[in-house]
Every structure is written in structure tokens, then in C-alpha cells.
């Protein structure tokens, strides 16, 4: 294309971009297509051109004229429907709110469980469930918590009758799975658990846990750290620091509690983390050989690790929820926030 024509085309494109109302478009029409407009100025050049260039140049000017005409007509059609305030016509008000259509949501606790399930599913863990009403065998004995043992103090329990109780932790599912299945095992078990705690902002007699278990040959504490780190980085973010510190659970040895750096104060110390910079997020450990004995696994051949976490706690941290009771009140104003 001729250099002059190209320049005109560019200028026009710039001008066209700033058209808002009808007046703007009409102004451009005059500027480019009017009797003394730019196009007719371009036409006037033709006679002065060398003979052999005239035909091509003329053709190009015509094409440009057509383009501009089309474009402006189109544009005038569009902008003229944006009426000016004085119009008397009935207007379709596109700014009125949409008709209310309700779409529901999963309970925030279910969302947390789903997210945890998803991370572990990618690591090859399958979801398993177990009964909530259990025997002492599954809730205590098989988990290496003998009767009259002080460690039972940590597991106050609702009883139905002698030997029948409401599970106080989802670890019961570990035993149920291992009784039925030989290694390798990779499961997680979410569910409701019950403890006779008086209800307040931080406690509830019913809450949710997710239990995890991996058993195979040559599984080590280093693997436990690896998997749980993977989970924490995926779930809580890559920049989160983790801390494994020794603890005690009757069904694991060595046992660990896992803390993450406090997301509120970034480890500096605040009321959420009791000024320690760390928030406890899960309990874990290598499966105690006594547990393997109960399910007739060879503790010389197999090792494994187990972990458990409280869903309410994680959800409260995630959304900055300050009262656990909100989860069970089912106030629509609460449920619709997540």
C-alpha cells in the first residue's frame, strides 16, 4: 500500500478507538468522507502521480474508502442505541440486577475434608470409612491403649454400654483396614468423632478428623516427613515452614506433633499461635509394633506411619473462624460465606 494511505489508515484506527457517542462517529465521517475530507484530498493527488502508478493508487484509495465507510456505518448503528438522556423511547435497562438464582454450597468442613482427600488421592491414598459406634478393642486395646492406663485420660469417651462406645478418634479405622487387608496400605479415613467435652468456642463433643495410614516394606520416619511435608506445602502453601517435634501417642513410636508457621503473624508470634509462632496441625508417628501385633502384621517386615488431624481446627485457621459452634448452627449467613 502507498505510504500515505497507510498513514491515513493508522490514524483512522486510532480515531475510531475513541468513539463513544454518536457525535464522535459523525465527526469522523465528516473528517474522512466529507467533501473536503481526507479521502477526497487523497483523490486529488491522482492526477499528479506518474501514469503507471495511478491505477493502483486509485484502487487502493477506493478500498480504503470502502473500509472506512463500512466501519463508520457499523459504528453509528452501534452507538446510536446508546441513547442520550433526552430520548423518549422505552429503554431496556441492562443495569437492573439479575434474577436471583440460588446455588448452594458444601459445608466448610466438607470442603476441607474434600481438599485433604484430594491432596492425598494424588499421593495414592484411598478413602475408607468406619463405624462411629465402636468396641473398646478398636478404640483402645488394638491401638495399644490398655484399660486403666493414664494415656486414656487423653481419650475421654462416651459409652453406650460396657465395651460399646462412640469412637474418640478415627484411628479405629486403621485397625479395621489392617484386619482385612495385607500391606501395602495407603488410606485416609475422614469422619465424626466424639469426646465428652463441654461445648465452648474451642471445644465440641462432636467433631471431625481425618486419619491417614501408610504401611509397606521399608517405610521410614523420613518418608513420614516427606509425605506430610508434601501435604502441608500443597495445602497451606509453599512458603509455610513445618516443625516436627517428639510427642507421645500410644499407637505410634516414634511419635511426632507437626506444627506449621503461624499464617497470621508469619512466625513472629500472635494470639492465634499463643505467641510461639507455630500452630499445631497434626499428630503423626511410625505405627507402634504393638498395633501390628494386634492385626498380625510382621513388624520385622513391615513398617508404616499414621497421622491424624482435626478438621474443625484446620478450617477455623483457614477462614479465621473464632467459634467452633458456628459449624453446627447452620446459619445460612454462615454457610453461604464459603
Amino acid at each position, binding site marked *: 500500500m502507498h505510504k500515505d494511505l497507510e498513514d491515513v489508515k493508522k490514524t483512522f484506527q486510532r480515531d475510531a478507538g475513541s468513539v463513544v457517542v454518536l457525535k464522535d462517529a459523525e465527526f469522523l465521517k465528516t473528517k474522512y468522507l466529507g467533501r473536503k475530507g481526507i479521502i477526497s484530498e487523497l483523490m486529488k493527488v491522482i492526477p499528479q502521480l506518474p501514469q503507471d502508478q495511478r491505477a493502483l493508487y486509485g484502487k487502493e484509495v477506493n478500498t480504503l474508502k470502502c473500509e472506512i465507510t463500512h466501519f463508520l456505518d457499523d459504528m453509528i448503528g452501534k452507538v446510536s442505541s446508546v441513547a442520550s438522556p433526552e430520548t423518549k423511547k422505552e429503554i431496556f435497562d441492562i443495569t437492573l440486577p439479575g434474577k436471583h438464582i440460588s446455588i448452594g454450597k458444601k459445608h466448610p468442613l466438607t470442603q476441607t475434608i474434600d481438599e485433604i482427600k484430594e491432596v492425598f488421592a494424588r499421593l495414592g491414598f484411598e478413602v475408607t470409612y468406619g463405624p462411629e459406634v465402636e468396641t473398646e478393642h478398636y478404640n483402645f486395646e488394638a491401638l495399644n491403649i490398655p484399660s486403666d492406663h493414664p494415656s486414656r485420660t487423653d481419650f475421654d469417651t462416651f*459409652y453406650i454400654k460396657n465395651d460399646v462406645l462412640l469412637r474418640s478418634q478415627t484411628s479405629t479405622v486403621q485397625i479395621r483396614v489392617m484386619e482385612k487387608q495385607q500391606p501395602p496400605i495407603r488410606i485416609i479415613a475422614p469422619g465424626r468423632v466424639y469426646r465428652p467435652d463441654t461445648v465452648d468456642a474451642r471445644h465440641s463433643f462432636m467433631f471431625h478428623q481425618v486419619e491417614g495410614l501408610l504401611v509397606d516394606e521399608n517405610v521410614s520416619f523420613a518418608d513420614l516427613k516427606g509425605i506430610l511435608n508434601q501435604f502441608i506445602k500443597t495445602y497451606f502453601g509453599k512458603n509455610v515452614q513445618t516443625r516436627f517435634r517428639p510427642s*507421645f501417642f500410644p499407637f505410634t513410636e516414634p511419635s511426632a506433633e507437626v506444627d506449621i508457621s503461624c499464617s497470621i503473624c508469619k512466625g513472629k508470634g500472635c494470639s492465634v499461635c499463643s505467641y510461639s509462632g507455630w500452630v499445631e496441625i497434626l499428630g503423626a508417628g511410625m505405627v507402634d509394633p504393638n498395633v501390628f501385633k494386634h492385626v498380625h502384621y510382621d513388624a520385622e517386615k513391615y513398617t508404616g506411619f499414621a497421622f491424624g488431624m482435626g478438621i474443625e481446627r484446620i478450617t477455623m485457621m483457614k477462614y479465621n473462624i473464632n467459634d467452633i459452634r458456628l459449624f453446627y448452627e447452620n446459619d445460612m449467613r454462615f454457610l453461604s460465606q464459603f
Partner: protein
Amino acid sequence: MKISYNWLKEYIYFYLSPQELADKLTNVGLVVADINPVDDDFCIEIEVTSNRPDCLGIIGIAREVGAIVGGDLHSPKTNLAHPTAENIKRVHVEVEEPILCPQYTALLINNITIEPSPDWMQKRLKCVGLRPVNNIVDITNFVMMETGQPLHAFDFDTLADQKILVRRALSGEEIVTINGARRALFQNMLVIADGKKPIAIAGIMGGKDTEVSESTRNILLECAQFEPRQVRRTSKELGIASDSSYRFERGTDPEGVNSASQRTAHLIRELAGGKIAGSIIDIRSARHEKKKITLRIEMLCKVLGVEIKVGVAVDILKRLQFVILNVVDNFIDVEVPSFRGDIYREIDLVEEIARVYGYDNIPTKTSIQVQSSLKNRYEIVEDCIHQSLIGLGFYEAKTFSIVDTSPLQSINLWDDKDGIDIANPLRHEESRLRTCLLPSLLQAKKYNMNHGVDQVRIFEIAKVYLAGNEKLPLEKTCLSAIADVDFYNLKGVVEALLSNLGIAAECEWIPYETSRSILLFKTGKVAQIKWDGNILGYLGESCESEFKPPPCMMELDMDLLMEKSNFIKKYKNLSLYPPVFRDLAIIVNEAYLWSDIQRCIKYTKINFLREINFFDVYRGKQIPAGKKSIAFNLCFQSPDRTLSSEEVDVELQAIIDSLQRTLNAELRKI
């Protein structure tokens, strides 16, 4: 347990600030919950896990610090006290229950002077949260805090027959404990008795009558071991917990009794001017046998996933005061110190090494064997239900599984049995496992109404607990919902849900009413839903009068949905030929239901009828009383050709004839 920073320093040298000390202790498993300045000292509060009673004395904590920083422990001063009194009074001690009391020592100390304990001791006790009483009581508390071994001093002159008998309580016996409470005792409880009556609940609390008072001159110092489970049972039964029972139920050092007694005697002689009368009476039924364990380095490395050298392992074990008996190749034979009752297996040594070695120093392995996992059927069905109901505008709720015993909460739609009661409920409001989810959802509806939210649309997937003949109840998973919509709306929800679950066959909707259902549903506006002979659930309008208009609700058997759902899909050819539609309105008696009309049409053999779609029922001016007009749309289609209008008319007439004949229907012009 609370310890004093300065006190700790008496047993081990370390150069750590309270905060540095707290971090180190936390990293070996002694979580420091709090540090508080007290005068020129710090009170450090440590959460001691139930397996570590050896850390319930400051010396035990000092041992852990020693393991962390290295260095030797300084044992507290004890001058062996030889008998010094001239007139040795005789005291007779007998242990009737050697299993429950493996060791009982008694030491008589004469001519003591009761006065306040010295300032330095009071300061120590106050720092760890104990209230100073007098020198004797304070000394026993001081030694308990120091060693972890509880002690008790009796006023010797109050003991009947100068006798101590460790026996079970007799039926009808009681005791007033030092806190002034009168307790009835039972025969399964172990007591310390004098010649006449119980003077202490063994290992838990002493009696008021024999406690050390201002006028006490001679004391009998008890230092003993009691069987942990016995102490725990009695403490729970009586509802008394003390610093003493806390330690005994976790297990005290079986080799620690005599030294604690001597240490106490030493301090009493020094601070209360007493004279030891006679040698210590020590009744011991069994010697403590030192446990010997072999640690395989191979096992250590296998469990931890890190190479730890023999020398490193030996060093850590030594620092923790294990006696190294032998090191051959990669095997370490150790003898466990008596205060570590929690350690009896190889894995226990692995943990000891791991925690001192440092969890931070164990690598974080990221190679894990690939394994695929699939969703199970429950998850698939649950996902489908979630998606369907959420798409239809429902929010998921979670309500408590434990409810009260009111008639409403006692509703059971699934069988005739009552709910299962909790034997030890905290409150009446949570004392029974529920048999129905709907009362809880009604509560949620009420809660919302009371908080100004009128429109509720919630569902819950949870269990109901049905008593059966098995030891454990049947846990039936139910899907329940409540919504501020009318009956047909919620019925539409059920139908949409079933369709999404691939449950194709039609349900029967059967009028339902029982003495229990009328507590939930409005009479005449409730249906039992049956599917293929199985009860799928219930749907109806709430009978609660406070809701205007009343919400509708449903409870479905989720286990059945799971069993019958079908996600296998097969493509059906789309018909190439156009459907022909005809609307029909008929006037019938009120008694005839839509299902009667449907059935009548179905039984009329019609070749090309594909669908019947209800669209309206009308009662009003042009319709005689006792009758109603029902309008519906009929869709005709052939899979292999275009139907002619005449063909359809013939079929339509057949339908009309059949309706007239069977239901006495009258055609209404529309």
C-alpha cells in the same frame, strides 16, 4: 508440670536463657506451654506426656537437659540419717496387698518443731505453684517436686495402736481427707489404716485426723510405691486427683523410694530439728528387675530413614543414663534405668535416639512409590448428591449426632425401636444417638428464623443409629433436607436427584401416617417413597405451626441410593422424526389421582405415545364441586417415520375413550 528455672540449675549446669531452654525442651518432646517471671526466677510450664512420669520431678527434667547439653547431674544432698533418738517408739507396719503396694517404707522422726519453712524453700514452692503450709508439709512437697516421688507425713501420736496396715477398705468405711471432704470407701480401694480405721487413701490423699498440725511432735514419714492402675481407678471413682495420684497413676521410679525418703529425712533433720528414731522400715515384696534390650543399628536406620553411626547412638543412650552393657558390631545391649518404665522394647530406644538426635536432622524423603487411587462407590454417590443438590440451591448442613430424648427427637422413620442412649452423657441435651436427621434440620430452620433468615434450603448426609441384635448398632446413612418450598418442588428435587443417580424406574408415592410421623409431618401431606419394593424414604410438609408457610422436608435412605445408583451410560439414538404434541384437559372426580390417570393411559395400548407431562390442575367456576380439571400434554413419536396427524388423532381418541370408560372423565375444551 511447673518448674523453676533457678531450681533446675541446682542439678545441671547449662547456659541457656529460659526461652532457649524452652525451645530445646520442646524439641526433645517436653513442650513448654508457658514461661512466666516470678520474682527473680522463671516458672516454666511443661506439658509432660503421660508416658514420661520420670519428668514429673525437676531432677527428671534436669536429666533431659543433660541429654541435650551434655554434662553431669548434681544429685541433691542426702546425709544418711542414723537413728539418734534415745526412746525408740515401736511402730508396726504390715502390707496385706503386696501387689497393689509393692513397697512401703515408714520412718519415724521424733521431736520435730513445726514452724514455717525457710524463705528459700517457700520461694521455690511458690514458683511452681504450691502453697507453703509448714516445714514438714513443705519438705514432703519439695522432695516430691524434686524427685517425682510423692511422700506423706502422719502425725504419729494420732495413730491408733502405733500401727500401719496397707489393706483394702472394709465395707462401710469412710474417711475425711485433708481437704475436709468426707468420702465413703469401697472394698476395691486400697487404704492405709492404723489399728482402727483408714488414715489415707493409698497414693491419693491423707486423712484429716492424722495430718501434721501445729501441735505435732512426732511424725511417721510414708514413702511407698502403689500400683498405677489401682491408684487411677480409685482416683476416678472418688473423683479426687492430687499431685500424688497424678504421679502414682503414671508410675514412679521403683528404685526411687528409699532415696526420696532419705532426702526428706535429711531435710527434716535440718529444717525441723527432728531425730530419726530407728532405721527405716522397708517392706518390699519384689525387687525391680532391670530391663535389658538389644538395639540393632540396622533397625534404627530402617525405621528412621537415616544413617546413624553406632558411636552416635551409644553416646545418646549414655546421656539418657542408659547403661551400655555391650557393643558388638551393630548391636548395642543396654540396661534401662529404673525410672524409665516406658522403655522396654527396641522401638522405644529408636524413639529415644530419634528425639535426641533431632527430628530436624532426619531427612525429608520425597520419593514415594507410585500408586493410583480411585474413588469408592460411596464417594462417587456422595459427590453426585452434593453436585445435584448444590446445583438446585441447597446448602449443606452439619448437625449433631447426639440429641435429647424429647418425643420429636425420638422419631424413627426406619424401625420401631427407640434410640440408643449414652451411658455417661454430659447433659440431657446430648444423651441419645439420633434415629432421624429431620428434627436437627428443623432446629437449624428455627435457628435461622430466629436470626432473621426466612429462606432456608439445607441438606445433610449423616448417619442414624438403629438398635439391632448385633453388639454394634446399624449405622444407616441418610440424606435429609428441609426447604422453604412446597411439596411438589421438593418432590421435583427428589426426582431430579434420582435421575442424576441413574435410578430410572419410577417411585411409588404412598400416603403415609403413623403415630410418630404426625410429630413431623402434616397429616395428608406426607408420602412414603417406595422404589422397587424398597422404602426409599419420606417426604412431606412440616407440621410445625410456627413456620408460615411451612417448609417441606425429606429423609432418604442413602445406603439404598448407593446400592441402586447406576452411572453406566449408553447412548441412545436421537429420533430423526418430529414429535407430535397434543394437550388434553379432563374433568374427573376428586378421588382420582394423577397416578390413576397415568396408569389408565399406560394400560391403553398406544403405539407411539412417548411421554405424558402433567401441567395443571384446576378447581373453580366452570368445574362442578367435587371435581377437578387436570391438564396434561401428550407426546407422540415414531422411531422410524413421521407420524401423520390422522394417526395421532386415532391414538388420542383411544386415550380419551379409555379415560372416559375407566375414570368417568369428561373432556374439557381448552
